[in-house]
């Protein structure tokens, strides 16, 4: 291991197409690591550093696969024999002698981090395919490197040859672990990381720190996901769309146009939330599939025609009229020094209100400097359907849980429509109670800060339980 024990470095090596790049992608949580079905695609080694607050915690080096292991081993044996050096030194000398030799380019690239950065070794094999003697040359070369090392059995296909591999690998490696980077979840990643700590006991405290950072970061992202879900639900459910209409009564065409605009807005809000979640979980390259869009869900909408004058609604103007009338009447009361028994104020309020109400339409249609003083608007929303907030929450929660659990080595298309029984998984007990209080406040257009916070906290706990995060 590197003399810089505070920054463990591991080179991920092995035969071509055994999932080395997938393991690097999964552990570093990057979906841009090139994973190709063609063997020999990776040409050079590439170092991925995992950082926390700018400080490097861990380095993983993705390397090309062994291409001429037997030949290289023969070279190493010749160097050792001819120059009388140790095995480890023979590796170093081979590296320095042949580093510009195209024939051994892949082996030079995979040995570079071992020789130059004293990296540990993670040897990756495919446990779904049988063990073969041709792998012994690779393992022997790695043994000659004399670095802390471990073996990882990755099951790519459906075959099961894990036991045979374990037996063969245990002759060369003290630590042998099974790990599938494509299907692995957080706990699997953390277990593998901890195993790296066991390859060299000096690394253990450092690796445990890395694991702690991983967990903290994961929880932080789950909280953010819960917040994004609740805020989006609040925006969508309480969303209003309005447009100016020609007269007091909206036409069918105007209603249809506004409804379409409304659905587009709702679709955009949901899409924006999903993009934010994808960026949060670093799955920006993931290909997703959804059976139904949110705006296709049937939901009950509330529409209303309204009028305003000078930006104030009829109701507000009525109040203003009443108050203005009352103030005028009160002035008259003062003039009569109380003899009117404040009847002036009362009469003024009533007169002001009636006058405003009666004259509203007249003033609204008046033109001042070429523009109408008032306007008519058609509004649609918010959604009163009781089921709708649950639909939105379920969709986004499922989306978030899928992103959180998906390995960054996964490259296939993902189905993002929740199954029928997903609702039962998240909607129970206190979550149901708290979120219903939140949704009710949204429907009734009341203050919802406290209920939103409680619902958000419950959704965070739901995500934790779905993803099986142990404290």
């Amino acid at each position, binding site marked *: 291991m590197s003399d810089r024990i505070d920054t463990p470095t591991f080179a991920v090596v092995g035969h071509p197409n055994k999932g080395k790049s997938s393991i690097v992608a999964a552990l570093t949580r990057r979906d841009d690591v090139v994973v190709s079905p063609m063997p020999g695609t990776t040409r050079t080694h590439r170092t*991925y550093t*995992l950082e926390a607050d700018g400080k490097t915690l861990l380095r993983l080096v993705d390397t090309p696969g062994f*291409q001429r292991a037997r030949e290289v081993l023969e070279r190493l044996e010749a160097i050792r024999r001819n120059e009388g050096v140790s095995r480890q030194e023979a590796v170093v000398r081979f590296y320095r002698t042949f580093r510009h030799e195209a024939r051994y380019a892949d082996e030079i690239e995979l040995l570079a981090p071992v020789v130059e950065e004293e990296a540990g070794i993670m040897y990756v094999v495919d446990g779904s395919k049988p063990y073969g003697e041709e792998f012994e040359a690779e393992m022997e070369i790695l043994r000659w490197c004399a670095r802390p090392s471990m073996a990882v059995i990755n099951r790519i*296909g459906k075959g099961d040859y894990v036991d045979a591999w374990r037996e063969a690998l245990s002759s060369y490696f003290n630590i042998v672990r099974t790990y599938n980077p494509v299907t692995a979840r957080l706990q699997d990643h953390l277990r593998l990381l901890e195993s790296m700590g066991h390859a060299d006991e000096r690394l253990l405290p450092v690796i445990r720190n890395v694991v702690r950072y991983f967990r903290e970061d994961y929880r932080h992202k789950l909280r953010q996901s819960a917040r994004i879900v609740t805020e989006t639900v609040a925006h969508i459910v309480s969303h209003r769309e309005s447009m100016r209409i020609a007269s007091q009564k909206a036409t069918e065409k105007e209603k249809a146009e506004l409804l379409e605009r409304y659905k587009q807005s709702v679709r955009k809000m949901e899409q924006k939330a999903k993009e934010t979640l994808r960026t949060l979980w670093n799955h920006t390259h993931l290909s997703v599939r959804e059976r139904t869009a949110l705006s296709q869900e049937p939901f009950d909408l509330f529409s209303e025609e309204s009028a305003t004058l000078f930006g104030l609604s009829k109701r507000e103007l009525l109040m203003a009229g009443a108050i203005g009338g009352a103030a005028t009447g009160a002035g008259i009361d003062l003039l009569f*020094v109380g003899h009117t028994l404040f009847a002036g104020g009362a009469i003024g309020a009533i007169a002001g209100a009636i006058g405003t109400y009666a004259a509203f339409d007249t003033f609204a249609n008046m033109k001042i400097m070429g523009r109408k003083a008032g306007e008519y608007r058609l509004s649609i929303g918010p959604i009163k359907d009781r089921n709708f907030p649950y639909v939105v929450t379920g969709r986004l929660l499922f989306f978030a849980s899928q992103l959180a659990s998906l390995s960054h080595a996964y490259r296939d298309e993902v189905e993002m429509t929740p199954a029928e029984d997903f609702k039962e998984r998240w909607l129970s007990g206190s979550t149901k109670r708290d979120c219903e209080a939140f949704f009710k406040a949204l429907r009734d257009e009341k203050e919802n800060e406290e209920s939103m916070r409680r619902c958000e906290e419950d959704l965070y706990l739901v995500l934790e339980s779905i993803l099986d995060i142990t404290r």
Partner: protein
Amino acid sequence: MRCERFADIVELLQLSTDREALRAFGMKYEEACKNPRKLLLLWYETQRKKYSLRWGETLGRALYRFSLALYASAFLFGFLAAMGLLYYNGKEPVNVIYFLFAAFVLPTVSLLLSLAATFKATKTHNPFLHIGLSYVIERLWFRRYAETLKPLLKKEKRLLDWAVLTRTHTAALAFASGMLTGLLVTVATRDIAFVWSTTLDIDPHTFTSWLQTFAAPWHVWWPQAVPDATLIEQSRYFRLGGRIDGKLIAHAQSLGAWWKFLAATILFYTMLPRLVAALATRYYISRLMWRSLLRLAREHLAAMCTPVIKTEVRQTQEVRTFDMQNACTTSEKQTDYDTLVVVGLNETQGALYKEREGIDAKRVLYVGGARSRAQDDETLQEVKGVTAVIVKGWEPPTFELLDTLRAIASKATRTFIIPVGLEEDGFAPDAHDLAVWEKMISTLKDDTLCLIG
């Protein structure tokens, strides 16, 4: 927390969103992570100079003008109300009960409405506030700032309501101040005759005890402002007769003492409660603003106090491209070969696949696996004629294996590569694996090589 600072911080939250910068700040003041308010204020103080913040300034300007107009109007209205209430035309004296109603009852009702509005300050719809004149003025006043303030009000819809609430008490205080000023000016510059007059059957003795109870807040430090029984007896007025009677005239000088009582009433029942209400409301609204700010800043604060985990990659990814020409692929299997070469399998496995493929060969050779290269070279000397090569279809060919195929092809007249599969796959290779083999073999650019798939 003032509205202007609130607006500035909200604007700063919109402008400063870089996670790493936030975390860098949080690391500098790590201790403050335990105190979100302190952390947020520290951040605001250090960051605001980097941005030209507009919202706080715009809101402050709007509120300043609005407040000034409101307070001035309220003061003037109170002054004029006092002048009106104390107007003495020489015929009928000023009824203190009437003044008390205007100086105590109405302001108390107004105070209760304001307090009700304050209790509802957490709601976005506050009916107690919305029926007030100041609210209506606010809606009309702030229209010109609507464009600038729209994003701010979108973040906190209740902000203007809170601004109005804090100013409502101050406006009422201004009104009471105006009223008190009006009273003092009138009393100082005119000769007012104060009486008490009511249709209700209240004897002076009862009225005295009521008023003395009413004056309890100031009777210790300002006893002169507490009307005694004599004054009350002397200042009873009945309208029957239509003129001021001799008794009132005889005690004209003492009747003026009522002004102290009225002044104390304004001080203790209008101004003091409003002052307390104003301070309490400011404190309460400040708490609501903090609550709102901490909610809005939750993500920023979390970003400051949570480590930023990220990955960096040093080198650019260089991928190998393969020059793949059309490979020879055939599904027609020959059965007779001059040579069969088995790569990477032991003799038992070789025999199994030979039989399954129905291959009949004059010689069978084994290479690869744990054998050395020297051994393979020696073995491959025996290759001749039409040669079949059995390879593990599930293992992609390495360059070393391609070297072996090249060596075989150089000795054979024709070489047929037969990738085989595992038992669980019916001993047939996977279509994907075959495609990989096809592509890799094509890189050899040898027409004598053909893949059987």
